[in-house]
């Protein structure tokens, strides 16, 4: 499998394209990705969004904050890089393997749907041996679904789940909470 990273040199951050490619290669193997991966880093923003384009090659458009070391601004963190890539590649695999056909496009996911899917990815990442702070994802889940015991129970179920379809993920997270639309 091939991994390419752009740009090769950075002007606003102290990132390393070769190291990024090595981490992406490791993570792609770990998450069972079977096709080339292209990582395009936007170093002009500290935000941390990632856009995924699926095709014969998986293209990840990554904002630099997604790979950044929060202790050392503008420097790269191996842990953050691996975690961000794994989250995206697991989502890519979900869509490619089937069962996620009814899932909206990434741009059309509600904040609740995005939080649920992130939780599902993070639980699997933890079981793959990657460094993940569960409480961080629990807090995000609570922000989207509510600060109640029922919501916490649903979080635990999603976290522990494997091989879900989009419909199963929705029913695990569904409740009376209002849907919060993306801005």
């Amino acid at each position, binding site marked *: 499998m091939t991994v390419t990273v752009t740009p090769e040199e950075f002007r606003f951050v102290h990132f390393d394209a070769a190291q990024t490619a090595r981490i992406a290669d490791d993570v792609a193997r770990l998450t069972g990705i079977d096709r080339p991966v292209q990582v395009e880093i936007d170093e002009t923003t*500290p935000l941390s969004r990632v856009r995924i384009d699926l095709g014969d090659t998986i293209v990840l458009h990554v904002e630099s904050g997604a790979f950044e070391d929060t*202790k050392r601004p503008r420097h790269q963190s191996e842990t953050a890089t691996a975690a961000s890539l794994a989250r995206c590649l697991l989502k890519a695999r979900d869509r490619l393997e089937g069962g996620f056909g009814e899932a909206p496009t990434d741009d059309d996911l509600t904040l609740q749907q995005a939080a649920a899917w992130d939780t599902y990815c993070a639980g699997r990442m933890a079981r793959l041996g990657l460094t993940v702070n569960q409480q961080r994802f629990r807090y*995000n889940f609570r922000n989207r679904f509510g600060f109640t015991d029922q919501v916490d129970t649903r979080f635990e179920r999603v976290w522990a789940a494997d091989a879900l379809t989009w419909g199963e993920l929705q029913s695990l997270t569904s409740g009376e909470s209002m849907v919060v639309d993306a801005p």
Partner: protein
Amino acid sequence: MRKFFPVEELARDQRFEQITMRQAQADPRTVLNAESRNKTNRLTPDRADASDRARGLMHGIFVGEIQALEGAGRTCWDFETGTEAPFALKLDMARQAWDEARHVEISVKLSDWMGTEIGQFAENTVLFEAACSNDPVLRLAGVNRALEGLAIDVFTTMKEFGDLAGDPFLEFCEDWMLADEVTHVKMGSDWLRRITENDAERRKKALEFQQVVDKLFSFGGTRSDSKESPIGLARRFRELAGFTDTEVEDIAEMSLKALEERKAFAAAALAGDTTADPA
């Protein structure tokens, strides 16, 4: 015990990474293309990255509380009672240290609740730097009026965030800490007025120092009335803390001007000006 403790020697374990104000603010990415990317930078729950941004801001509050505790404690110790600082001023600083110690503990618990580890984000040491002046009045102007004034703005933004997100602990804790901060800022306002009542020159110097510290933060575009700033200006709480209407207007105006300067700085960095690189 030594007096006037340097910022480089603050006691921190290996979990903490400290950065200077220059490093913190010389990041051109923070305002590059800001207008085309976002309608707003304000921290609100409807942002996709809301919980992560709140975690980062909460960690900033946490390290600010540690430094506020250290600064107030030093002011109790660094000056001779009576000749250099009135006893009642030191008593206020002791009371503040007590409050800040409680705020540190609250911040640690909130960080834990939000899924943040101690030291997970860089520690900007600017608050303690402002507490290193050898004139207690300048410390009160720089720390209590400028930086704790900023704390009022930050706590108000976080309290609103907790309220909108429905987080019962965040909203509650921020509200209590906000009440303490208003008191700390008022201490700064009251002591500045009392001590410099018959010393116009000293008052002028203190107010200039406060303005320098205020501008440091405004330069980053961190706090202003503009939605491009993550933190708003809490006008009502500032009034309660002893700021005059003119002072609040001056800060508002300076903050907006500084945000524009910052955007120009970022544009220069984008054009290849390497002086923007803090590394």
